[in-house]
């Protein structure tokens, strides 16, 4: 070709090439992307204005939805708009499932328009709206190509722009429709491996049809897995598998349900009930430090230190008002045996054996029950009103015996009575068992983290931890029984013993008062009155039985009357103790404290407020102490108000699966637990079990 022709040709070609930078269209080998607008009433405040990126894909090429699925990235739009004009988010049309081998993506093929609503404020004034858009998209077939384009468009303010009306209408029609009147709920089941979703109130046109489930949040659902769904009447239910490598733990989620062949799906939103487990199991590092505000993510105690703390905790249990009366009861035994060293030591060992075996037995039972799936934590015995009542009856029995109303010898046939005497060891062991039964819920300081650790350990180690607790509790008594010197230092038997014995009845009765109060918290004043009636009937029955100074016939008559009265009282009382959730009143009408729930915490955190949660129970003495001291302190409360901290109370007096689950998640197994949930943190800061105002202030001030 002659030079002149070549020059002319290149000139023509050069002029014919589109200028990408300033246009509203970008074409690549895989897509044709165009910036389009819809402003039928022009551009002015209050008028509907929509912009959008229209993408026409070459066959088999696709781009991605807001949740792209297993791979890929969603299209992103970055706008440059004049002052007073703001763009919203992309109003994503209903996506398509795009399987890629064993993986699943969500996106669009063919032609799609991604619309964006534009808000025009009075600050905008001009003859035209000049829009600049920088868009990035990933377009894939069997290979992936990240692409981008710069677009510019000028929309006249006074004229109508409706050339793309049909495309915008189609895009709006393809948007997931909000499901008006539909109620959706979701719950994590199967150890948070499955999300059970149920939706009622969906449009009748969808009933009975196979719906596809598109989660709007990435990083939660196993996208490629099959979802089993079914219709139960008007309710749609699905078991959605959760990804084994989930990286989000949302409290709520939105999803789109699409019937086969439908252009638009239905958008549902639901809160997710149940706890997300921590993303990874924490390691047990070699160092051992139990910090004042230890976060539970990594229980920083090794087994030997935990055993030491368990020992200490067990020893402290002896000081709890629930245990002391029993211990004092054993002191009586001391006074009687002070001269027989072997008997004393044997008694001490029997007591220790009783205590340790009870702790281990309880722990074994707990492990078995936990394996069986029940949501029970430490102290579960005192969560049952019938158990509390039974314990109150037993303690009253012992108190009346101590006070001299009856003697065990006259109650039982002589054979049994002498058997009891002949086996002081069994008696000692039984005393140990009783002591454990009542002390277990009072988780003393130091024990909280050790207990929590026990349940992350293999069964053998967990049982040994509980055995250490038992040894600690029995230790003071055992030491005293082993060193005759100490026992001999005790006063010799004498008249003072019966006075001492009667005096011991009163701590027993004080414990009954406490149990009656717990029962009242669990049931109602009726339950307490029923208990008192039973105790009166019991006292009468015991007095009737113990009347040795009457003839045999008279005695039988009195005994029968006593038994009948007791039976009647129990028959009347049992229903009021059995009522599940019978008007369980909130402990004290304290408006400051709201009932706890995981969604409440999430809501307040989303508002930017910290949440202080008091996990408590009526039968937990340490909890009551903290309530009256630190948590009742005016300065502390003022400080909490100033920091806008929300106060929530989780009452574990009766069994509650949600609270049990949360306690497990925090690595604890009993109450009290004081947790501060700060916004943006996955796990709360935990405080020690004995609070002080300074401690609370430091924890709130910290990160």
């Amino acid at each position, binding site marked *: 070709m002659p030079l002149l022709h070549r020059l002319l040709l290149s000139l023509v070609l050069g002029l014919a090439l589109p200028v990408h930078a300033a246009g509203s269209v970008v074409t690549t080998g895989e897509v044709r992307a165009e910036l389009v607008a819809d402003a039928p009433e022009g551009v002015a405040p209050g008028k509907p204005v929509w912009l959008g990126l229209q993408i026409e894909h070459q066959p088999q090429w696709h781009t991605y939805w807001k949740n792209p699925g*297993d791979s890929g*990235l969603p299209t992103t739009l970055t706008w440059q708009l004049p002052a007073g004009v703001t763009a919203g988010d992309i109003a994503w049309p209903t996506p398509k499932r795009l399987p*890629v081998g064993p993986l*699943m993506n969500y996106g669009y093929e063919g032609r799609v328009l991604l619309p964006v609503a534009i808000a025009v404020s009075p600050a905008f004034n001009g003859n035209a709206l000049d829009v600049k858009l920088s868009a990035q998209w990933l377009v894939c077939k069997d290979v*992936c190509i990240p692409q981008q384009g710069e677009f510019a468009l000028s929309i006249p303010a006074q004229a109508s722009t409706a050339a793309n009306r049909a495309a915008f209408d189609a895009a709006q029609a393809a948007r997931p429709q909000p499901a008006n009147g539909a109620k959706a709920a979701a719950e994590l089941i199967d150890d948070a491996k499955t999300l059970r979703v149920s939706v009622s109130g969906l449009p009748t046109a969808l009933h009975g049809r196979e719906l596809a489930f598109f989660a709007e949040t*990435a990083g939660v659902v196993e996208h490629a897995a*099959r979802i089993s769904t079914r219709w139960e009447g008007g309710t749609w239910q699905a078991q959605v598998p959760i990804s084994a490598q989930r990286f989000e733990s949302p409290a709520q989620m939105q999803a789109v349900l699409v019937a086969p062949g439908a252009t638009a799906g239905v958008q549902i939103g639901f809160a997710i009930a149940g706890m997300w487990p921590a*993303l*990874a199991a924490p390691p047990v590092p070699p160092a051992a430090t139990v910090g004042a505000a230890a976060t539970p993510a990594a229980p920083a105690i090794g087994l030997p230190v935990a055993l030491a703390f368990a020992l200490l905790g067990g020893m402290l249990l002896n000081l709890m008002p629930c245990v002391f009366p029993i211990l004092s009861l054993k002191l009586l035994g001391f006074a009687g045996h002070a001269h027989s060293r072997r008997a004393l030591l044997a008694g001490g060992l029997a007591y220790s054996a009783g205590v340790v075996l009870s702790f281990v037995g309880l722990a074994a039972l707990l492990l078995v029950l936990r394996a069986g799936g029940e949501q029970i934590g430490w102290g579960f015995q005192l969560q049952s009103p019938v158990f509390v009542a039974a314990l109150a009856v037993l303690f009253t029995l012992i108190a009346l015996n101590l006070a001299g109303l009856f003697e065990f010898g006259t109650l039982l046939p002589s054979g049994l009575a002498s058997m009891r005497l002949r086996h002081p060891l069994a008696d000692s062991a039984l005393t140990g068992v009783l002591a454990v039964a009542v002390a277990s819920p009072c988780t003393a300081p130091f024990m909280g983290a050790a207990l929590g650790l026990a349940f992350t350990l293999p069964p053998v180690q967990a049982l040994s931890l509980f055995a250490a607790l038992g040894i600690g509790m029995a230790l003071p008594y055992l030491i005293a029984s082993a060193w005759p010197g100490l026992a001999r230092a005790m006063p010799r038997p004498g008249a003072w013993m019966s006075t001492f014995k009667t005096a011991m009845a009163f701590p027993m009765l004080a414990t009954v008062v406490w149990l009656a109060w717990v029962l009242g918290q669990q049931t109602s004043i009726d339950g307490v009155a029923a208990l008192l009636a039973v105790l009166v009937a019991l006292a009468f029955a015991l007095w009737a039985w113990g009347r040795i100074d009457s003839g045999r016939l008279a005695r039988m008559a009195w005994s029968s009357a006593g038994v009948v009265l007791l039976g009647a009282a129990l028959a009347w009382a049992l229903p009021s103790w059995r009522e599940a959730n019978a008007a369980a009143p909130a402990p004290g009408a304290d408006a400051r404290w709201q009932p706890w729930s995981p969604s409440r915490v999430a809501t307040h955190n989303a508002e930017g407020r910290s949440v202080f949660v008091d996990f408590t129970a009526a039968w937990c003495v340490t909890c009551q102490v903290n309530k009256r001291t630190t948590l009742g302190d005016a300065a502390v409360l003022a400080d909490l108000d100033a920091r806008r901290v929300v106060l929530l109370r989780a009452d574990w007096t009766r069994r509650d699966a949600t609270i049990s689950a949360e306690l497990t998640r925090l690595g604890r197994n009993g109450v009290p637990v004081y947790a501060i949930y700060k916004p943006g943190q996955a796990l709360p800061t935990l405080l020690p079990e004995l609070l002080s105002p300074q401690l609370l202030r430091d924890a709130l001030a910290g990160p």
Partner: protein
Amino acid sequence: MSKNIRFVALALSLAFTSAATPAASVGQPAPPFSASDTSGKAVSLADFKGRTVVLEWVNPECPYVRKHYDSANMQATQKTATALGVVWLSVNSTHASHVDFKRPAEMAAWTKSQGAAATATLMDGDGKIGRAYGARTTPHLYVIDAKGTLVYAGGIDDKASANPADVKSAKNHVNAALADVLAGRAVAQPVTRAYGCSVKYADS
């Protein structure tokens, strides 16, 4: 008709895949595996018992893999890790039917030309290792501690883009995870978003 059959077959295969191989999860023992590297030598996870191991899913044709190799980010991360005694295994799970497939010799040449510092590059053409680990994208990174527990799964960093310039301002998750593991701490972010092209298993 054939479309229905294809749909049914696809659904069945999906059900089968999801039922047959539950993918690895962080906090659980890492699935064992064994494969040939680019020089034909057999390599298995058991060979590195007692050592920290990093698995990196790679596909030289993927723009996101290129982002980290062109910016020398991946090579630097590999060098940092191997210098600390960590074993780095690059895994290519591209199926032979895919256009991105590379023969072992080609893979070896590519890694050499990139100056990669991986301990070995494994050929996982049948996708066994990929499926066992639930590898979804290239790149997709996993860290296994010395006890054999999977402690990290996710992306190489936190900026999901194809722009190499983003590497400088992004947080490198693998470096952070290795620092935690080697110090005996719990990994602060054990699972993150893995971004990139899909792993090219069969039928991709």
